[in-house]
């Protein structure tokens, strides 16, 4: 019996050596995401009308002579422009870097005139797998215990969820946002846990990934503030006084990136957001908005635009993208008008926030199909493969915004205890971790508010993408900290035997 036990123990040791938890997580995620992204019939997300932003300025166009499918089916093949491209990017974004990389790979390995969306998937896949490795490493380091495999499993279950990996075969910026968030999170946590002898590679990784994240989409601009909070933690790194100046410069850079991302939004983009903040926000969750509009100085007839999309899904009474709305409706209100409106209609705003809270954990984009037309599936069909986490969390996560706020306070308090203990013991792990969690919590609370005020409940699942990512990260961090006995203070080897 003892020999058997010893053998099992040795086998486990060997397994731990050749397959540490981070590697295992990466392998499983690679299999899951690879199956979805590359094995035909491929899965991805259909165009919701936003793709053109990433396509044309990068020289990709809809193939002529084929029926281009919005909403219903994923399009696999696109055309690559050969000659002068007259399209200019509609906004300041880091996304073209990734699209250009995909095009380059496509030209290198596949074709100079046809673009296969799978090359976009490949780029997203590569960055994603790297981030999965780092994040699992950050959660489990330096403990060498079997329960770390539980943590790795949790990472796979949550971040390997198809609702995240479906984004890969698309021209959305979300897959890059996901991996960049994971990189910056892992960098801070690894710094806190002093994984490497040199700190600068992680600090640089953090800086670059955060800037790419903030600039990937104009709606990410406010995240700069959250990341300033996260960066504050770096000031508490031991023996770091001399480099503090750099940290302040870094914070400044973050703010500038955020400011630029916000300032350089294209006009069509602001029109869409402004319109939908109205039709999908101000007009919803209330009885008859006609009177309130009149009071606010807008022709009451526009109340009938309730729930209209800027790009009509199928049919619409009027196409908002045409000049009539641009000339007659949009000049009558702005961001300040909307803020003032909600300030005087708090009940409606509360209902909208609860609506957001209900959508927080539903990460799968239900509005668009996940299959190609060639797969023979009906239009708009959703993938159910490995969506356990998103389904579970989508169903059971409480649908009250007040709950979210309380949860945030509770989490902040728990991590504040760790921070306080570590400060007293002159350790930095808990401090960095506290600021990291605090930064993520600000996203958890403020991103929904900004989405509602800035774009209404249109495309809510996509706009609050950072909310589930941040709460998922905090959740895994919490579980891993409990498992490794480091929730209330920094990691000590001697605690582990108890």
């Amino acid at each position, binding site marked *: 019996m003892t020999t058997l036990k010893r053998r099992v123990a040795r086998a486990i040791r060997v397994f731990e050596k050749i397959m540490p938890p981070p590697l295992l997580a990466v392998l499983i995620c690679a299999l899951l995401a690879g199956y979805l992204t590359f094995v035909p019939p491929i899965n991805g997300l259909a165009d919701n*009308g936003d793709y053109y932003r990433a396509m044309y300025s990068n020289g990709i166009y809809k193939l002529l002579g084929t029926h281009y*499918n*919005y*909403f*219903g089916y994923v399009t696999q093949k696109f055309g690559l422009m050969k000659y002068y491209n007259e399209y200019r990017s509609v906004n300041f974004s880091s996304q073209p870097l990734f699209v250009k990389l995909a095009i380059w790979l496509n030209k290198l390995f596949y074709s100079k005139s046809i673009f296969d969306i799978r090359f976009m998937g490949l780029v997203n896949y590569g960055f994603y797998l790297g981030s999965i490795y780092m994040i699992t490493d950050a959660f489990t380091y330096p403990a060498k215990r079997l329960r770390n495999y539980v943590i790795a499993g949790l990472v796979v279950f949550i971040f390997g969820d198809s609702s995240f990996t479906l984004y890969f075969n698309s021209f959305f910026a979300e897959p890059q946002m996901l991996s960049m968030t994971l990189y910056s999170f892992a960098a801070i946590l690894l710094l806190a846990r002093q994984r490497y002898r040199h700190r600068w590679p992680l600090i640089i990784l953090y800086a670059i990934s955060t800037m790419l994240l903030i600039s990937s989409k104009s709606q990410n601009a406010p995240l700069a503030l959250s990341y300033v909070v996260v960066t504050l933690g770096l000031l508490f790194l031991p023996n770091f006084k001399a480099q503090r100046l750099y940290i302040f410069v870094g914070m400044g850079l973050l703010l500038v990136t955020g400011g630029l991302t916000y300032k350089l939004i294209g006009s069509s983009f602001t029109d869409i957001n402004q319109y939908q903040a109205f039709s999908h926000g101000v007009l919803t969750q209330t009885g*008859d*908005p*006609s*009177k309130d509009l009149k009071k606010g100085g807008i*022709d*009451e*007839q*526009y*109340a*009938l*635009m*309730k729930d209209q*999309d800027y*790009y*009509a*899904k*199928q*049919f*619409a*009474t*009027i*196409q908002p993208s045409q000049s*009539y*709305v641009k000339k*007659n*409706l949009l000049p009558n209100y702005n961001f300040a008008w909307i803020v003032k409106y909600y300030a005087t209609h708090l009940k409606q705003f509360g209902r909208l926030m609860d609506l957001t*809270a209900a959508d927080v954990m539903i990460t799968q984009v239900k509005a668009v199909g996940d299959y190609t037309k060639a797969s023979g599936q009906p*239009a708009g069909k959703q993938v159910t493969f490995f969506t356990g986490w998103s389904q579970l969390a989508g*169903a*059971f996560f*409480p*649908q*009250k915004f*007040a*709950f979210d706020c*309380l*949860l945030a306070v*509770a989490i902040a308090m728990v991590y504040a205890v760790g921070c306080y203990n570590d400060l007293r013991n002159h350790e930095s792990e808990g401090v960095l971790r506290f600021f990291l969690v605090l930064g993520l919590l600000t996203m958890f609370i403020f991103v929904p508010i900004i989405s509602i005020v800035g774009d209404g409940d249109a495309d809510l699942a996509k706009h609050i993408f950072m909310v589930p990512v941040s709460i998922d990260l905090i959740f895994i961090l919490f579980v891993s900290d409990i498992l490794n006995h480091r929730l209330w203070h920094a990691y000590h080897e001697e605690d582990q035997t108890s």
Partner: protein
Amino acid sequence: MKLKWCRWLLSISIVWCGWLFATQLPVHAQTTPTVLLAYDFQNVANNDQNKIAAIQRILTSLNVQVKTEAIADYQAGDMQKYTGVITLINWPQTKLNNAAFERDRQHFKGIKLHIGQNLTATEAAGLQAKRQMLYHQQLMLQNHAGSIHQLLAFSETMLTLKQLPAKAQTIGYLKSQSVDQRQYPYGTIVGQQGYLPYFSTGGYSLVLAAQTLAKLFGQVGHYQPLLTITKVTPYSKMAVLERLSRDLYQRGIPFAISTTTVGANGHFKAYQRFAKVLRLVENRGGVIFLKTPAVGGVTASSGPGLATLMDDYLVQFAQNQVFPVGISTSAYWNQDRIYRNYALKKADHVLLLPNPTNPVYAKQDNQSMVFKQSIYGLDAASLETVAKGSSLGQLALDFPMPTAVTFTMPNSLKSLKNMERRITKLNYQWFNPATQGTTTKITSGTATFEFQHGTYFLNGQATTIKTGVTKAKTLAPVKPTELWVNRFFKTQGTVLLVFFVVTFAVFILFIFVGRRVYLNMFKRK
């Protein structure tokens, strides 16, 4: 025995009648002629796709079914199915390269019409005339009497006919501006064959081209134009629309409006106001065409959704005593199987408007259907072209097909004034649907809307429209049955919230109590 014989006789006669009926049906259907409209290129760079759409609209208005096809796609032998074939040349610089088409056309015995340049020698021979090319000319288009004329744009080349046979009919003349002021025929008909040297989507050219088509297809008619205000939406300026209807009413001008609507939120004050203005329109000699919605991302499976939406539009209108007399739509909707079957078929009167810049089809089949009446929407601006000081509109024009002269809904009182001035300038006897015996019908789901001699019928019952606020027959709102699961999750959220609040309170209480207990431990008793 006798009974058995009777039974036999009865069943045979039923079968025979059925067969007779069945065989007669297609014969009946064939009374509307079907025409092949074959074009060389769309020539989008020149916006010539609009010419194709305009010819389709004219033919539909003339009750002629039309199948449109690019000449390159023509398959040998297909022409036999049609009563007529129209060749439209949009890009004369390139040659046709479908020999089968030219061969079939040569042997075709039905009605033939050539529009545009590149009239072949065989075609000219069929017209029993000689071809004559005009170079660098500024031409004037005029009627036989010379009372109506329109100056045409400068043309590089134009192929006209000369030495016409005696039996030839000509429609309009092209008069050169040179010293000799020679005249060339515009529309020419010789027997079953016709020729138009060019085609334009507006102005007098369009009217004459339509006359040529009408004569050729034996559908000659004389119609007064219907004054129509297009692009009305629930978001238009209601005060302006109200004023417009009042002004036209006071001046005794009957009119129509083409409006989109919404299928939901009928209880909103905004909708009530919209419906009230539309009721005023109905009471002030106006009729309403329901405009089909704008199209976003549609697929071939969007049909049922479209039908429901149209029904919602109509039902909500009916609940508020707004009764459309027909459906107005962009011309391309009639070239699409889904749009026709799920929307246009609901009405027997259709107003066909020009196409938007980028038409979005659900299932394009280029096979138009005909209606009891299809009205050709003609932009008023194209009739206001000044030629030698007089506007075409000032001369009573004879429209060969049901025509609506359209104005865009003004956006302010100032532009309303401007529009009214333009209407005054057009010296037409406007068509009055109420007094001139128009009967229309829309069938939507279970409801029917009829308009007969100025009276509206809802489901067969005559209805008087009250202008004031009608207590709309509010149907009980259909509440979706709430699933117990949803209820559970809803309560779960609240329960957790309460739980958290209580826990928090207890937690904070414990901190205080604990702190006191802790401090008390060190206090000397």
